[in-house]
């Protein structure tokens, strides 16, 4: 007798348009059957799990995570990052290459993924640095990194300034059939900036980052794409103008995708009013109209995916005046619960939310996950969408405990996270 059956589960699988009470069978780490209703008794199944009507969905694929390991392990080690992600319902994550050393050659990808594979946790993928040392000038060894398993290329937290470099990078990534992930910010407009440019920044005396800095880069890149087709992905999109540009590009038929993160649909710049550095993020929290645009963009699928945008930052880097504090926050622990806020508010359906958290990012990166189809890896989560808890950085499994959502009540608690049929996290 082998395998396991999960019955009495509320199945949500956008890839098969399944949404209802049913069961799922797994064997040897692979999904063998899924169906609505009560299954026929099967004596060969070794273990049956009564899911008690909790949601069984594909595991979260988090396509934007910064790892402090290697290089800054004091902020967070690989094992706590993966444990925190598992706790948050994440079954696969893609790590940005801004580690120390920078992941700009194949061996660095090998090393990171090998180390991750020795830890029982989510499947770990890595992006390759688009340019050597992330300097934005010379192309890194994209082809060799692709062979080593890079799921895409990015310059991490900075845009490629030089248009010719960008054009070549897009063309070359396309030759390798890998997406290019762009953090869209015209850095010449945002030098020294501390928050979104607005009346609030003026009142607080903080240097403003104008929101058009995002769309300027998106527009430039779209012009390049029209001549030189490629898979282009806008990371953590946060402005109405940027979202409008992506919407038009999609209508035009360009291969453009985008993701955003919970702060950009749950918070706005007014949060900065007390100079609380937990709200210092990159891109900065925008105005209320931008926040609404992000929700609209998610609802009409202009924004395909939701990522955590996890960035390990310690207290020292935040216990400073706003201007000198580091941007960023810990986010893998809270990604699901925060995202479900939009479901509870009735802005987005549960099915679409699961799609944005799993199927969409898996599709963008062309990696396993995001589906409960028979024959696929059994990467899934069980969660109670209505269970409430209060976010407290002190309770994070991640070593990095700064969150802009400190003390905020949320609904949605992961009971168990499975990768290849193995529980990498279980609340019991």
């Amino acid at each position: 007798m082998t395998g396991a059956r999960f019955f009495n589960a509320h199945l949500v699988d956008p890839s098969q348009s399944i949404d209802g009470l049913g069961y799922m069978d797994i064997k040897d780490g692979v999904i063998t059957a899924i169906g609505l209703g009560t299954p026929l008794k099967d004596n060969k199944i070794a273990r049956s799990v009564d899911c008690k009507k909790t949601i069984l969905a594909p595991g979260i694929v988090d396509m934007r995570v910064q790892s402090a390991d290697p290089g800054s392990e004091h902020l967070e080690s690989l094992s706590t990052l993966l444990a925190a992600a598992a706790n948050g319902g994440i079954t696969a994550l893609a790590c940005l290459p801004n580690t120390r050393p920078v992941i700009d050659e194949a061996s660095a990808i090998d090393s990171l993924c090998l180390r991750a594979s020795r830890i029982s946790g989510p499947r770990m993928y890595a992006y390759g640095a688009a340019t050597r040392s992330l300097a934005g000038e010379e192309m890194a060894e994209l082809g060799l990194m692709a062979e080593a398993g890079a799921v895409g290329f990015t310059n991490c937290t900075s845009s490629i300034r030089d248009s010719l470099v960008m054009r070549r990078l897009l063309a070359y990534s396309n030759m390798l059939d890998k997406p290019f992930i762009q953090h869209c910010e015209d850095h010449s407009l945002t030098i020294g900036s501390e928050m979104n440019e607005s009346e609030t920044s003026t009142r607080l005396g903080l240097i403003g980052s104008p929101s058009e800095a995002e769309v300027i880069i998106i527009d430039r890149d779209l012009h390049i794409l029209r001549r030189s087709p490629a898979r282009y992905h806008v990371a953590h999109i946060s402005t109405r103008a940027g979202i409008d540009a992506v919407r038009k590009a999609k209508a035009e038929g360009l291969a453009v995708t985008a993701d955003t993160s919970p702060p950009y649909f749950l918070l706005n710049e007014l949060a900065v009013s007390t100079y609380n550095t937990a709200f210092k993020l990159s891109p900065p929290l925008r105005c209320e109209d931008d926040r609404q645009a992000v929700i609209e963009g998610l609802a009409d699928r202009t924004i395909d995916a939701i990522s955590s945008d996890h960035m390990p930052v310690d207290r020292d880097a935040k216990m400073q005046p706003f201007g000198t504090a580091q941007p960023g926050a810990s986010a893998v622990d809270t990604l699901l619960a925060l995202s479900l806020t939009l479901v509870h508010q009735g802005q987005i359906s549960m099915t679409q939310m699961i799609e944005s958290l799993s199927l969409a990012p898996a599709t963008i990166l062309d990696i396993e996950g995001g589906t409960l189809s028979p024959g696929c890896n059994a990467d899934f989560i069980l969660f109670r969408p209505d269970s409430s808890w209060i976010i407290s950085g002190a309770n994070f499994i991640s070593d990095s405990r700064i969150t802009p959502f400190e003390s905020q009540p949320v609904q949605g608690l992961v009971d168990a996270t499975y990768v290849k049929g193995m529980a990498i996290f279980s609340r019991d």
Partner: protein
Amino acid sequence: MTNKISTHDQSSGGSGPVILTNRHLLGIEGMSPIEICKLLDRGHMFADNPHDGVSDALNGKTIINLFYENSTRTRVSFELAAKRLGGSVLNISVAGSSVKKGETLLDTATTLNAMHPDIIVVRHNCSGAALLLSQHVDAAVINAGDGRHEHPTQALLDALTIRRRIGRIEGLKIAICGDIANSRVARSNIHLLGTLGAEIRLVCPVTLLPANIGNMGVSVYTDFEAGIEGCDIVMMLRLQTERMAGTETPSQREYFNLFGLDSRKLMRAAPKALVMHPGPMNRGVEIDSGTADDVEKSLIRMQVEMGVAARMACLEALIARSQ
């Protein structure tokens, strides 16, 4: 020279220290007009009796001046104000202190806090730094300028100067001219003078105008002469020289030509218009010497004098609040 035209209410100013709502003085934004007026009244009283032992409110109290930016007049002004009230003053400037060795603001705050000062006066180049400090010390904190945010005692001394010279603030037309974007003095004055009913105009090159400042109850002019037209007060701000090298403005020459104050341009203001400047001045950049030194029109020296009186009122109020 008739600098002292006292029109204030002596009785209220003389009735004792002001009690503020907040434990700290971090900014003008959010202060009520009543609180502001009481501080000004008390400031009047101190200005009238600068050397008499009117109050020994700070007797046995320790005041620390913690200055992360260079300053002469503000630091000395606070020191003098505290000493006139009988307080002991410690000056800590960043050069030559542990800050240079990499100590953070909050570590410095913790260290100073352990010495139990009663008031910490802080100046820092980051907006919000005074608030941050206030959240981590037991002492009352006075913001002596935080980045581009606020410089509340400067606005109080400016208002005190105007009230002593003209007798009122309500209804005056006041032009604030120059580097608005980077000025904490401008922000505090917009809040204070606006709260007390002045009409405020901002006059500056468009590149030195912060976003959406029009929402703060001011009108904005990029033509200097049109901006100061008919104004009772022309308040000039300092422009840092590095902003005149082709970045925010093309050159010092062009800036003085378009936005500098001289006696010819001043004729566009109201006939008895008065000139102010928080100092230190860049003569020949934002203001010419003839105008700056004109004893009839310039309030610049009086501003310095009022600085001590205004700060005495603030120090006394915070000590009274803490007891």
